[in-house]
């Protein structure tokens, strides 16, 4: 049996991921409450969401009346108690176990015992996050891809104590949002990051080992495998500092040498080469020259 979901809360809704998730929910007709700590950040993110919807109307992908309905379904708050009527609360707060556990503890005090709590974590254990709630059976993993409002995939993971009813209800909700869920076990990185993070590290190590230039590594992967983006270009987009954080999240729990931070990555971050956001990473985004190890 699945639970009826009418109202959805999104925690961390001022962030890129949270805002995207709120759009997904509202677009599917759910009353959506965006919660975050700071009003100005929430307002900024609401403006960005409105701009996204306006653009969709301009491009003919969305009817103006539908846009108005989506906007009408969305509200925002800095008061967590406003989430009390939610049937589903999705958290997309900072990727830190203690932060997420503390949030669930606060949500326990606000929401009814029937409310489903979903975590958008990409690296942490659902079971560990769920231990922050007095009702861990109601907690489920629901990992969206960035940008959530455009990407269909959701990795759905039950923790050890997640009830089948919770999982099925959350699964049905993602389908009601026209998303495409896949079921994975509660293991580090689920499917996507478990395959991607070490692969990207291997590309950095190949560069450091002098196998080829950064440009040729990316070109080989694109031409040989048909990937849209080379691994080094992708790390530049993600941010080299973010890749370090991913390694630091994965390696201690998996002890997989491929997940350990490659020395070159650490040196580049120390040198301020963070990728696109700093103008330079494995490639130079000011000129078109390439950075090589």
């Amino acid at each position: 049996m699945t639970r009826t979901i009418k109202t959805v809360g999104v925690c961390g809704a001022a962030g890129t991921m949270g805002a995207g998730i709120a759009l997904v929910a509202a677009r599917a007709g759910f009353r959506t409450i965006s919660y975050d700590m700071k009003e100005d950040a929430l307002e900024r993110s609401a403006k960005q969401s409105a701009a996204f919807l306006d653009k969709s109307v301009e491009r003919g992908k969305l009817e103006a009346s539908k846009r108005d309905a989506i906007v009408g379904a969305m509200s925002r708050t800095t008061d967590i108690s406003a989430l009390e009527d939610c049937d589903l609360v999705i958290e997309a707060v900072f990727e830190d176990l203690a932060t997420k556990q503390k949030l669930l503890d606060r949500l326990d005090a606000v929401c009814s015992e029937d409310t489903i709590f979903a975590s958008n974590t990409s690296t942490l254990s659902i079971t560990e996050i769920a231990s922050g709630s007095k009702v861990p059976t109601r907690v489920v993993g629901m990992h969206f891809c960035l940008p959530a409002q455009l990407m269909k995939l959701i990795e759905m993971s039950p923790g050890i104590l997640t009830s089948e009813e919770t999982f099925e209800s959350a699964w049905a909700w993602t389908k009601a949002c026209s998303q495409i869920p896949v079921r994975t076990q509660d293991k580090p990185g689920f499917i996507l990051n478990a395959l991607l993070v070490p692969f990207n590290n291997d590309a950095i190590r190949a560069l450091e080992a002098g196998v080829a230039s950064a440009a040729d590594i990316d070109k080989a992967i694109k031409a040989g495998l048909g990937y849209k983006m080379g691994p080094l270009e992708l790390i530049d987009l993600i941010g080299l500092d973010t890749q370090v954080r991913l390694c630091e999240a994965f390696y201690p729990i998996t002890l997989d040498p491929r997940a350990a931070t490659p020395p070159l990555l650490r040196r580049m971050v120390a040198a301020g080469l963070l990728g696109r956001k700093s103008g330079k990473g494995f490639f130079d985004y000011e000129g078109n020259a390439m950075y090589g190890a």
Partner: protein
Amino acid sequence: MTYAIIQDGPSRSFAEGDKFLAGATDRDADVIVHCGTPFVADPGKAAILVELGDESLAEHIGEDPAVTNALGFARYRNGDDAPSKLVELVRPASASDAAVAAAAKVFKEAGLEVVVSSDQIGRIVNRLVIPKYNAALRFLDEGLATQADMDLTCKLGLGYPDGPLERIIRGGLENHYDTTQALFETYGTPAYAPPRRAVVSKNMSRRRDR
């Protein structure tokens, strides 16, 4: 830039009728391409190219720093799939820039995409992709997700044209075994250790052949 192909047996890079084979001239050409034939030094050539499988170029040309015009190459292909457009040109430490440029030119003129790799086992693509494929096969054994869901995740989440598991199976698990075993023997790291499904496929094939 003219090139001659000296071939013995089938080439993994160029199937019969490939445009590159059709463009070859005679042995007076600027570049000599060996496909299954032994390397013969000739300093008068712009480049001498040796087609490689999973092995090191040095097995064919030695490690003599005086040989400056010899290079290796392999067109990347996933097992039994048709070859991709990618040519991995293998540049030993001794090779001159002029030899690399001449080699790249003949392939580019045939419409192929060229990257330069050092003479390390696995070159670029297999070195990077094989550990990922091995992880996907292991995850499947461990029940992380179904094959369909893992492939779908990679296609939808990462924009891959096909999923890793469908790709390995389509290319042939025995071929996957051979490549990952070559990498494992060289590097000794667990990431290259042949996964169970590849070992099973290889052993069954050996039994059939007996």
